[in-house]
């Protein structure tokens, strides 16, 4: 049923698609994280801004992805990497902003007050106390965003981008199961591997949480 020969003779293409897929995903989540971070700082500084920020990012999140690509084509052009990136980044914002803000807010007041009482500046409290303690929530958000994005990158083929989507699209078009499966299984495997890697990163970055569990 599966044409192993085709896979063996196309390993180079598969590898290249893997790198492209990963590149688009990492770039989108990276930009999403930077943008979300800025939005979160605004929401934390001005409480009233949190509602509007989650409303806008929520609306972005609900737009069907195919429709969003279509809207963006006139702006950036059919094959621009930005047509794909703007759409992908949009989908990461809601989950990331929500988790960053919730993570920072979940740091107990008494910990922040004691830090202030010791003579830490507000900037230092954010950097050295709130941010590290929010890491588990932030990384949880990144995991969801990363898995979602890896799935969505399969669609960027319709705006001319590479990655596993190309195999899926061509495989379906040619009614060639093996090629479609390579794209699908590749994307699923990548999502699982990235997710596991992020879990490992969280464990390494938060030794205090691990020790408590032990």
């Amino acid at each position, binding site marked *: 049923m599966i044409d192993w020969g085709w896979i063996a003779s196309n390993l180079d293409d598969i590898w290249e698609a893997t790198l492209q897929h990963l590149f688009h995903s990492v770039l989108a989540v990276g930009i999403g994280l930077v943008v979300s971070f800025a939005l979160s700082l605004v929401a934390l500084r001005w409480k009233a801004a949190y509602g509007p920020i989650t409303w806008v990012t929520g609306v972005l999140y609900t737009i069907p992805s195919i429709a969003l690509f279509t809207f963006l084509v006139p702006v950036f052009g059919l094959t621009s990497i930005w047509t794909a990136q703007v759409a992908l980044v949009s989908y990461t914002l809601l989950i990331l902003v929500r988790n960053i803000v919730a993570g920072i807010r979940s740091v*107990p007041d*008494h*910990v*922040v*007050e*004691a*830090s*202030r*009482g*010791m*003579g*830490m*500046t507000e900037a230092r409290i954010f950097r050295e*106390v709130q941010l*590290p*303690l929010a890491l588990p929530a932030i990384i949880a958000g990144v995991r969801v965003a990363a898995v979602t994005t890896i799935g969505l990158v399969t669609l960027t083929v319709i705006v001319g981008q590479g990655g596993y989507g190309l195999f899926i699209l061509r495989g379906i078009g040619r009614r060639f199961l093996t090629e479609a499966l390579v794209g699908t299984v590749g994307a699923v495997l990548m999502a699982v591997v990235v997710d596991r890697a992020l879990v490992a990163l969280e464990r390494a970055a*938060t030794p*205090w949480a691990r*020790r*408590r569990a032990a």
Partner: protein
Amino acid sequence: MIRLEEVTKVFPGADRPAVSSLSLHIPEGEFVTLVGPSGCGKTTTLKMINRIIEPTSGRIEVGGRDVMSMEPHLLRRSIGYVIQQVGLLPHRTVEENIATVPRLLGWDRDRIERRVAEMSELVGLGADLLERYPAELSGGQQQRVGVARALAADPPVLLMDEPFGAVDPIVREHLQQEFKDLWRRLGKTVVFVTHDIDEAVRMGTRVAILNVGGVLEQYDRPEEILANPANDFVSRFLGEERGLRRLALMPVSSAGLDRGPVVEITATPEEARAVMDAHGSDWLGLLDGGRLLGWVPAAEVGTSPLADLEPREFLVILRPEDSLRRALDAVVTSRTRVAVVVGEQGYLGMLDIDRVAEEITE
């Protein structure tokens, strides 16, 4: 050391001030407890001293400097701060927590390391705990770390907001005792907030009693407040057991002790009976060269030598430094209706209920 002049705090949106025109002078080296019912502004007052809360008006000086003239974070580095929930940094080890302020002050690594070792020993934390995270410690241990952290940069002033409120009563009493001893050794100026009047009079060298809205009702030595409450509010706040609370502050050694119906075991039975008659007692205490052996009921004193008797032990034996409150407890719970006091050199004497009562009615 700390001077509050006409300090007022009105929180935004509140119709009444949390603290109104409070003036309080805290001399260097004193242990001042702020106590009062909830809403009396005691915590607000404390937090205005290190500017966690900014006063609405008035002037606060620490060490002769107006706190409003200093950068808040620099001011706070020179004031130790301990809160009820401790507020240890959960992602930092005990060692790193204690080193917080020295690190902010830019001390070098060796100096910080020495200081952390010194502090952990001071508060009775084992060296094996230094590498742990706060979540791995008991409540009492966490509060010890909190105290060590507050003292690490050797600040002249320590602010404490119900520091022992979150631990169980047995640990609390232990920590109170330890901290009072520590204070005696270090000579810091301490401002200590509590809602517990017993803790306030036991810990403080001076007690400030606040009423709702931050009104200072009385500020004096605890013995004086218990003996002469300034007004109805203070006497009501002190509660019905005011006499007992005063007794708790007085050592047994401050009371006059009676020798009581006791004899050396070398005495004759006749002499023993004479002593019991003189005291109107139905029991006899026995000494062996000044050492207290115990007591025997009058009926057992017959014609044989006292040395042949088998004395019963006194269940409670007090030391001169124990409180009169403990003495009273010993009196009302013992079969012999007295509290016996024994010092380094042996038997010192005993107190009965009249003696204890004399001390508070004086």
